[in-house]
């Protein structure tokens, strides 16, 4: 027997199917919008928690004292005092050491890979250098603490078991790939015609690099330095392990000192209970950290956009 099909039924069926389809079409954008707004919620969450708890902190401690005092004794029972200066000096000093390692080596690596290396060498070397960037920071911390510090103490007997020099150097090594690959990208985007023009005028390769390629790529190169600094400021595990926890306002890199990030780790893993001033100080320090890295990242984006020479 042949099955009878009515046109009416078919149309109704098709309409139902279409309705469902259009329903899905209408709801999907909203769902996806909800998912996309999670990233905004995250930012809002970060900024609002940091701001709120920082506000609570500054009810207990005057903001001027926080930035002018030089004593940092958050867990002292007798007379706790709060100051960001020792942490700032530690952060700046260690980042400085890191950049003294990362900038020269990162930039020259970028120059070698982009201007001198043959295609094969570049293909072989670049991934290996990028492996350095993929190693977890905890491994660098271990390396700094158990190997670099003892090694440096052979040469500098005054070096303390935890100090600013060793984590600074190791952090610099960690940042080399970042500086190298961003600078190389910038140099690669300089058109070949410019190099050839200079070569045709009789310049050596070094002169071409120094007077043509680097000036043309300078915005990208500086952006890579700034991003490197921002990375150094935000790096946590290397300094937590290898730079110690003394909060002295000192500029002696053989001494133990604490960065902002290491302070956050110390207080969260210590016994400062929620609601104490020491606990709130955490957020004030984190807010400063967030603020500095955000400024640097935005600055890097700004210079690479604004001063990019378009060819």
């Amino acid at each position, binding site marked *: 027997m042949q099955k009878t099909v009515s046109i009416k039924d078919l149309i109704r069926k098709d309409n139902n199917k279409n309705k469902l*389809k*259009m329903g899905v079409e209408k709801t999907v954008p909203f769902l996806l919008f909800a998912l996309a707004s999670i990233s905004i919620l995250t930012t809002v969450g970060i900024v609002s928690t940091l701001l709120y708890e920082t506000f609570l902190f500054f009810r207990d401690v005057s903001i001027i004292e926080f930035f002018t005092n030089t004593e940092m004794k958050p867990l002292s029972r007798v007379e706790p005092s709060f100051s960001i200066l020792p942490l700032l000096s530690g952060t700046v000093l260690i980042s400085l050491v890191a950049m003294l390692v990362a900038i020269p080596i990162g930039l*020259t690596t970028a120059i*070698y890979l982009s201007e001198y290396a043959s295609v094969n060498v570049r293909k072989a070397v670049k991934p290996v250098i990028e492996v350095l960037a993929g190693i977890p920071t905890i491994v660098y911390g271990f390396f700094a603490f158990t190997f670099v510090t003892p090694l440096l103490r052979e040469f500098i007997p005054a070096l303390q078991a935890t100090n600013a020099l060793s984590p600074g150097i190791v952090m610099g090594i960690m940042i080399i790939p970042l500086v190298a690959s961003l600078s190389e990208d910038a140099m690669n985007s300089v058109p070949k015609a410019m190099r050839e023009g200079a070569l045709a005028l009789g310049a050596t390769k070094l002169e071409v690099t120094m007077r043509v390629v680097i000036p043309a790529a300078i915005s990208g190169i500086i952006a890579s330095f700034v*991003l490197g600094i921002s990375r150094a400021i935000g790096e946590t595990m290397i300094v937590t392990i290898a730079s110690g926890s003394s909060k002295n306002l000192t500029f002696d890199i053989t001494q133990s000192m604490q960065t902002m990030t290491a302070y956050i780790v110390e207080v969260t893993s210590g016994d400062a209970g929620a609601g104490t001033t020491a606990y709130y100080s955490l957020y004030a320090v984190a807010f400063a950290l967030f603020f500095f890295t955000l400024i640097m990242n935005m600055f890097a984006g700004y210079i690479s956009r604004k001063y990019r020479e378009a060819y």
Partner: protein
Amino acid sequence: MKELALNSNEKTTQKQYMNLAKVNRRMTARLLINNVVKYLFFASTMFGLVILAFLMYQIFSDGLGWLSMDFLTNRLSTLPERAGIIGAITGTVWLMFIVGPVTMVLGIGTAIYLEEYAKKGKFHSFIQTNITNLAGVPSIVFGLLGLTIFVRMFGFGPSIIAGGLTMALLVLPIVVVASQEAIRAVPSYLREASYGMGATKWQTIKNIVLPASIAGILTGVILALSRAIGETAPLVAIGIPALIVPIPSSITDNFTVLPMQIYYWTIDSVLVDEYASMAAATIIVLLAVLFLMNSVAIIIRNKFQKRY
């Protein structure tokens, strides 16, 4: 006076007509500097490689002796000869089970919204800038967010779910950016052909765009996961205890992961000598896992990525 005038006269003539000897001298010097500097640049490039080799050698020579089946399958113990990392391994796997799905849903969803639905305008660039900035926020700050929101406000405690969600937010930008690039690489004629066949927008995305971009998306997810399992700072901030003997069995359990184990053993190595070697052995395990994941990512990228 006369001599001086003569001298300056000579100078100007020299300036106008350089003699061959001087040209040769300068040229040799320039070429010499060029060559010397070339080797300097090469040496500095090698510096990174040498350090990497050194680091690997140190860790392997230190830790390989401790690596054994017992070390992998024993529970944590204060006695070095009885301690193992099965708890940390299980914790890491649990963490991946949270971070993987959460970042995949959030990341791919965000990427599809930005690439396919959002109008290119102020709001679009606002989300985009926001994601770029989130990628640059130090991981310890994400840890504080996790501590405040997930651990305290939601009351999860230092559990797998709190750690996993914190990590998921941290690595989200990686997945979003990778997925966006993959989706953008799908040529528009594929989409138009699909529309031409009468498919709706969502059908086109589901049946055409996503399958065509899945290799790039998966690569991003794997890279994000490998970042997540190597991160320590956010988990320290949410307050994971130092010594956890029980093996976690649900997402509300307390846990530890491989990097945390390395952290505690490293800072305690001043007390117990063996702890340094145990940390090194744990690092070998962690690096092996990372190496495996990155290899998978590279294989996926090379084998399954279609070029249009």
